[in-house]
C-alpha cells in the first residue's frame, strides 16, 4: 500500500483531468509538469517523448534545464544511458540515489546536471496500456532530500494516467473515425516502417515495404490530405474482391517520425466496375493514352476503347477525362502498382 502525500486526491483528479483534455499533447504537457511541481518542488522538468526509429528522446515542455542540457537529453547517447539504467522498461520511478550505477559514471549527471547545481532528481518511465514505450518524465532539484520515498511511490501510481496524457497514438487513433467501417489500420512512419494503430488490427497488405504503402507515401509527397483508392484482394469465393485504402497524414501535433494513418475498409459500391475497368481507371487517372494503356495491358486499342465505353456508362460520365476525375474523387480506381497483387 502506497502512503499518500497531502492533497493526493486533488492531484489524482488534476492529472486525470489533464489526461482527458482533447487535442494537442503539447497543451497537456506543461499542465502535467505543473502538477508534478506541486508534489516535488523542483528546478527543472521535461517530458521526453521517445522516437523509437532514431532511439532518441524529443523534449516537450521543458523548463529550467539549460540549452546544453536539453541538447544532451535529446541525443542518442542520453537514450543509451537510460537503457543502461533500465529506464527503457516499465518500472517504478527512479531517483538519482536509486540508480543501479554510480551517478558519477553517467555523463548526464557528471558533466551536465551536477555541475549545473542539481543534487537530486527523479525519472518516470511512460508506457501505454498495450506496452508501447512512450518516453520519460524527468524532474531535477537542488534539494538532496527530494523527493521522499512516499512522493516517489505516489508519482509511480500516477504513471499510467500520465502516459495516457502524453500518448501520441491517442490523437492518431481518433483519425480512424474518418472511415466509418475501417477494419484494419496501421501508422506509417517516415522511415517506411509500420506501427500498430491502437484499436485496429494490421493486415497483410499493410506490411512494411508493401506496394500499398508506397502508393500511400507517393500521395502524401504530392501533398494530398485525404487519399482513397482500391486494391484487389481476391478471396477464394470472390476473385473480383477489392478493399478500400484510405490515407491520412498524422496530425501536426504527432511526433515527427509518424507520417500517416493507412486504413482498410470494405470497398463499398463499385458501380459494377470490373477488376479490369478499375485498373484502366487507375491508368486514366494517371493520364495514360489509350495507346499506352493497350500496350501496358497487352490488348488492342479497340478493346481499350470498348472498356472505356463501359466505364463511361458505369461512371455516368460524358468523357474519359470526367470519368477519371470522378474516379479520382471517389477513390474508384486501382493504382498501377497494385494491379498485380495476388494472395
Amino acid at each position: 500500500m502506497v502512503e499518500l502525500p497531502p492533497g493526493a486526491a486533488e492531484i489524482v483528479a488534476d492529472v486525470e483531468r489533464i489526461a482527458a483534455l482533447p487535442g494537442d499533447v503539447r497543451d497537456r504537457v506543461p499542465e502535467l509538469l505543473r502538477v508534478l511541481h506541486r508534489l516535488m518542488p523542483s528546478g527543472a522538468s521535461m517530458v521526453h517523448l521517445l522516437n523509437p526509429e532514431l532511439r532518441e528522446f524529443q523534449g516537450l515542455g521543458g523548463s529550467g534545464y539549460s540549452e546544453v542540457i536539453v541538447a544532451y537529453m535529446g541525443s542518442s547517447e542520453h537514450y543509451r544511458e537510460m537503457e543502461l539504467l533500465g529506464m527503457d522498461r516499465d518500472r517504478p520511478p527512479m531517483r538519482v540515489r536509486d540508480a543501479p550505477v554510480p551517478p558519477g559514471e553517467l555523463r548526464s549527471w557528471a558533466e551536465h546536471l551536477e555541475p549545473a547545481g542539481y543534487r537530486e532528481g527523479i525519472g518516470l518511465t511512460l508506457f501505454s496500456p498495450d506496452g508501447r514505450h512512450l518516453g520519460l518524465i524527468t524532474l531535477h532539484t537542488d534539494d538532496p532530500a527530494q523527493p521522499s520515498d512516499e512522493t516517489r511511490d505516489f508519482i509511480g501510481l500516477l504513471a499510467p494516467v500520465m502516459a495516457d496524457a502524453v500518448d501520441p497514438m491517442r490523437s492518431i487513433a481518433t483519425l480512424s473515425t474518418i472511415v466509418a467501417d475501417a477494419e484494419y489500420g496501421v501508422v506509417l512512419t517516415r522511415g517506411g516502417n509500420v506501427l500498430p494503430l491502437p484499436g485496429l488490427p494490421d493486415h497483410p497488405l499493410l506490411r512494411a515495404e508493401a506496394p500499398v504503402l508506397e502508393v500511400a507515401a507517393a500521395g502524401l509527397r504530392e501533398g494530398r490530405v485525404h487519399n482513397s483508392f482500391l486494391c484487389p484482394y481476391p478471396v477464394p469465393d470472390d476473385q473480383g474482391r477489392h478493399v478500400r485504402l484510405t490515407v491520412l497524414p498524422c496530425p501536426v501535433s504527432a511526433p515527427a517520425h509518424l507520417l500517416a494513418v493507412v486504413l482498410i475498409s470494405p470497398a463499398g459500391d463499385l458501380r459494377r466496375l470490373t477488376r479490369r475497368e478499375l485498373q484502366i481507371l487507375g491508368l486514366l487517372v494517371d493520364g495514360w493514352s489509350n495507346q499506352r494503356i493497350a500496350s501496358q495491358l497487352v490488348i488492342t486499342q479497340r478493346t481499350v476503347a470498348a472498356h472505356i465505353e463501359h466505364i463511361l456508362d458505369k461512371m455516368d460520365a460524358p468523357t474519359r477525362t470526367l470519368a477519371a476525375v470522378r474516379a479520382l474523387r471517389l477513390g474508384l480506381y486501382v493504382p498501377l502498382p497494385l494491379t498485380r497483387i495476388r494472395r
Partner: protein
Amino acid sequence: MTAPPPPPSNVLRDVAEIAETPGHHGQMAEVLARVRRVVPVQAAWLALLDDRHRRYTELASFGYDGRILDYFGTTPMLDQVELVGLTNSALPQRAQESPVPLNELPVWADYYFPAGFRAGMAVGLFTPDRRHVGVLVLCTDDPEHPTEAERDLVAAIARPVAAAVDPIRSLAVLAQVVRDAGAAAVLTRAGEARPLPGLPGHRLLAPDSALPGIALHQASHCGGSASFLWPTDLGPDHDDRSGLLQVTVLGCPTAPPSVVGILVLSPLPGGRSVLTRRELVTVGLLLEGWSDEHIAVGLDLPLGSVAETIARVVVGLDAPDRHTALLRAARQGWFIPPRPGRPPQG
C-alpha cells in the same frame, strides 16, 4: 469539501480509455457499466445535449422504464436540469441537495417517486472549455445512497465521461491533419459551419458566407472529402494569384448524423497560386463537366479566349495535355468551384 479517496487508478484508466474512442454509441453502455462499478445505483441515463432541439438525446441507460425514458427526451426535462443549475455547474448534485423541492420537479413527482426511486444524483457534463455537452443521471431505491463520497467520486469521473460523449472532440483532432490550418469549423448536413473548439473561425465560415454550402456540395460529389481553392475577397482581378485559401473538407461518417465533417482553411504555400483566378474558375467549370462553349457563355468570353485560358492551364501545371492537367488540378485541389445554381464569377 470532503476529500474523496483517490479512485483506484484502473477506474481512471478505464474511463480515460473510453474517452479516447469517442463517437461510438455502443461504448456508452460500457461507460455506464463502469460508473455502476464504483457507485451502486439501480438506474442510470447518459445523454447528449441536442441544443438545436432543446432536449437531450439518450446515449445509454439501464433501469428506467419506457415512460421515464420517453420523458427524459423532452424539453421539460432539459428545463428542469437548467432549473436546478446543472447546465451551469460541473458539480454533481444529489437529490437532497436540489435547490428546488423535489415534489416541485415533475421528473421526481410524476416519474421517479411513482416508479419507486427514493434518491439519486445528476451531473452536468462539461468539456474542458466549459461547454455543456450532456448529462448523467443516476437513481437508487435506497435513500442512503448515493453517499457524499460517491458523489465526489462521480465528480472525478464526470470529466472523462464528458470527453467520451463530446462528439466534437474527435473532429478537432481531425482538423490537425491539415498543415497550417488557419481556421476550421464543423460542417453540418444543412450546409452550416459551426465553431470547432480549439480552432479559430473565419469570415468565410460565418453564417452569411456561401463557402460552407459550396464545400458541402463539393464533398457530396467526392465521397465525403474534398479540396479546392476559394477567394478571400471578391475584387475579381482575373490575373491575380493571391488572396486565395485552400479549403479542405474531411468527411467524418462516425460523427453524429447532423455532421458531415470538418471544413478547414489553410494558406497556400508562399501565399500564391500556380494558376490565376480566371484559370482556376475555368478549371472548376471543366471539372463540373462544362464544355468550352458553355464556359464561354457563362464567363461572357469569346470561345477563343477560353481555349487560350485552358492552354495556359496546361502549361502552368506542366502537363502534356488537358486531360492530365485537369486530373492534376483535381488531385491538388487547384480550382475554384462554381456556386451551385448561380452563374460563375470571374
